């Protein structure tokens, strides 16, 4: 029976081509626009560490001066050198890493290549294990090397390709502003989206290409980058960052279960109270543990424009659907005569209804294909934009399946009322009036 409905539907669709094309086009544009913007939103608001982000926390304290004190305001998302080192050395979490951003001029051995800058991250040994960075060659450095301020580096795959043509470069040296760093590890391509561990340097940019122990970077005075928030007599003077009253480092800890979180929170609150008691902190003791997704949410990483575009495209889709309902109504009602003949010959209301919905379903599927084309085109246009997040906009399988399902359901829903009305036509009246 379904085959017969399919044939009837195709025949009917072919009979009024302009109307059919218009319905398919409306659904395709609506779906395509919505899928494009939803994909962008999906990529931008994704989880940078799938499966792990729930156990990665940022300990936050309030070491600032009394000026501008506001209990309801968020705590800084960075820590001072003193607090960072204290908490790092306390080793109260499963893993912990202290870090800041930087930029290093790389001078290739080959004199024909001009020196170039790469972004760098100065951090401590646990960074790699905690964020599960994939290694192609070698491995992370150890806590001992942190203490020794070893002249070593882990480099990204892109830099390895550029300097060493992708070969195993363990043991070779990179020259950065007179500093010679021995390579101990090479990462596979790795890019957490968003760049959650330091939103000051970039929010959706690529991960750094050189990783150097934080202790080494301070000893060698490597160029530091990133947000610095100072108070009191603090100033962003590079030579005295360790003692300045400024927050400029990101601290992350890994806590595997609820008990570990509770215990670390108690420890952090105790630490804050000690600092107040010793007179280091002017403000009342406050301490918080924020996990990755909460931090991204709090910092409003996803641009407002992207959300606005999603709403706009959904509104657009609704108009397209209303339009399709109207056109289907016109199409089905025009066939009142045909429907009446079928009814008079014994077709039940139900079979007429099913037949009309089959027609709507075909429109939906065709709209899905069209929508896919529109979405692919839309995403290609998005990728042409120069901002760092744009290149990430790709349709994944979920969105692909969603495109078809939504399109099919939308068309069926649009066909519902018109089909119902068409199958309620009293056949006798129609036949008589013809």
């Amino acid at each position: 029976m379904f085959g017969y409905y399919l044939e009837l539907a195709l025949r009917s669709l072919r009979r009024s081509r302009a109307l059919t094309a218009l319905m398919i086009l409306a659904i395709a544009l609506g779906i395509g626009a919505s899928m494009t913007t939803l994909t962008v939103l999906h990529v931008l608001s994704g989880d940078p560490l799938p499966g792990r982000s729930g156990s990665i926390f940022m300990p936050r304290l309030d070491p600032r001066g009394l000026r501008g004190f506001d209990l309801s305001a968020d705590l800084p998302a960075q820590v001072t050198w003193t607090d960072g080192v204290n908490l790092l050395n306390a080793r109260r979490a499963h893993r912990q890493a202290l870090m800041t951003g930087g930029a290093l001029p790389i001078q290739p051995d080959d004199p024909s290549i001009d020196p170039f800058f790469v972004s760098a991250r100065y951090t401590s040994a646990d960074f790699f294990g905690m964020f599960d960075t994939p290694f192609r060659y070698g491995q992370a450095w150890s806590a001992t090397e942190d203490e020794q301020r070893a002249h070593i580096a882990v480099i990204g795959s892109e830099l390895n390709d550029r300097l060493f043509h992708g070969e195993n470069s363990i043991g070779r040296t990179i020259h950065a502003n007179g500093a010679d760093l021995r390579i101990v590890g090479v990462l596979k391509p790795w890019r957490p989206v968003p760049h959650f561990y330091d939103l000051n340097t970039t929010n959706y940019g690529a991960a750094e290409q050189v990783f150097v122990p934080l202790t080494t970077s301070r000893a060698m005075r490597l160029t530091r980058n990133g947000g610095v928030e100072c108070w009191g007599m603090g100033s962003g003077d590079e030579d005295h960052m360790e003692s300045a009253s400024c927050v400029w480092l990101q601290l992350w800890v890994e806590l595997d279960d609820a008990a570990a979180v509770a215990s670390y929170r108690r420890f952090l609150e105790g630490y804050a109270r000690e600092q107040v008691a010793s007179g280091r902190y002017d403000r009342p003791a406050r301490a918080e543990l924020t996990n990755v997704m909460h931090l991204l949410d709090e910092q409003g990483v996803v641009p407002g424009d992207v959300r606005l575009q999603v709403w706009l495209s959904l509104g657009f889709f609704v108009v397209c659907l209303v339009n399709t309902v109207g056109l289907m109504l016109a199409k089905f009602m025009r066939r009142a005569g045909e429907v009446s003949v079928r009814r008079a010959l014994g077709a039940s209301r139900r079979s007429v209804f099913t037949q009309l919905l089959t027609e709507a379903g075909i429109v939906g599927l065709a709209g899905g294909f069209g929508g896919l084309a529109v979405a692919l085109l839309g995403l290609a246009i998005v990728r042409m934009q120069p901002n760092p997040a744009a290149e990430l906009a790709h349709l994944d399988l979920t969105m692909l399946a969603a495109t078809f399902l939504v399109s099919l359901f939308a068309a069926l829903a649009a066909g519902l009322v018109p089909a119902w009305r068409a199958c309620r036509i009293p056949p006798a009246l129609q036949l008589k009036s013809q």
Partner: protein
Amino acid sequence: MQIKPILAALRRHKAGTILIALQIALTLAIVCNALFIVHERIDRVNRPTGMDESNVVVVQNRYVGSPPNFVPLIKTDVQALRSIPGVEAAYTTNSFPLRRGGWSTGIQTKPDGTKDGLPTALYFGDEQTLKALGVRLIAGRNFNPGEVVIVQPQQRPAPPQVIVTKAIVDKLFPNGDGLGKTIYLSKGKPSTIIGIVDKLTVPWIDFDHMDNVTIMPLIFNSGYQHFVIRTRPGEQDAVFKATAKTLYGVNRMRVLSEKTGVRTFDMVRSSAYETDRGMAILMSVVCGVLLAITAAGIVGLSSFWVGQRRKQIGVRRALGARRSDILSYFMTENFLIALAGVVLGVILAVGLSQWMFTHFEMKRLSFTYVLVGVVVLLGLGQVAVFAPALRASKVSPVEATRSV
């Protein structure tokens, strides 16, 4: 024109009538809000910086290596840039309008002020800065070369002389006697206002005090800086091409990045407002497509109605109705539906604008846009219905007798 029979007829096509009205309402709500956003973005993109933006080339430079003092390198570079043929002025700085990165601080009017000062962006420069930027000095004088000081990275910049924008003096010294007054940009370090410029904007595109800028005569000892170059009219392209070559000729140990190394100010402006322009284009396209789809929907449904009523039209024509009567019947019918649609649409538009106001920190929709939207949609309906209505008016009176 009789409206009553039209209303009576519409009552028999409730579903179609409601659908067209709803579509018009939604389209109106989206289109007038979207066009309002387009307008706001265009306004932003065209905001003046106070500079004379034509014939300006900017350079972003990083030296490689770590000498104790970068100042001699910087001075040599500035000299080299000034000697490029076609260059009128050049200087080194930390930032300039639309760079989207720079320094800011709070201005105090007392040496030991404790409240948050008036926020201002800081631009470093020298005696050629005003000329290179092309800003207008409205009071006081320019810096002279002897006033340019060297500032080390660990020092807070607060030279004895500064030039500020009119916005700052108006705010700090409302009596109009700001010239020659002393301000404090760092605790206990006085700076005298020696000049006032008409307008110059901060480097950021979202800042609460866009016109608060302080220009300081100083060279900052750092391996990372910018150069701003003003060329003679018509020589911008030549200077743009010669700049990188000249700088690499002076000293190879530097990085001028591929994308942001050497740029004309047009490039700076267009990259600063890239997302705004993208949003404006997207919104315009969406509006266009929405209007087209709505028009197509109206054509589709009206054609169906015309087809359905051929017999009635024939009867009316046989009873003496003229073609123009039939035409105006359909036009009026559409107008009435569209009118209901726009009434609902205006309510939706205002509601949508209110919602966006609370969720996206946007301004409230101006009523002009609603009005324009109403006119556009009523017009669109009339245009869309014209072809089907014309076809209806051509139905011959004979149709009345065609069927049993």
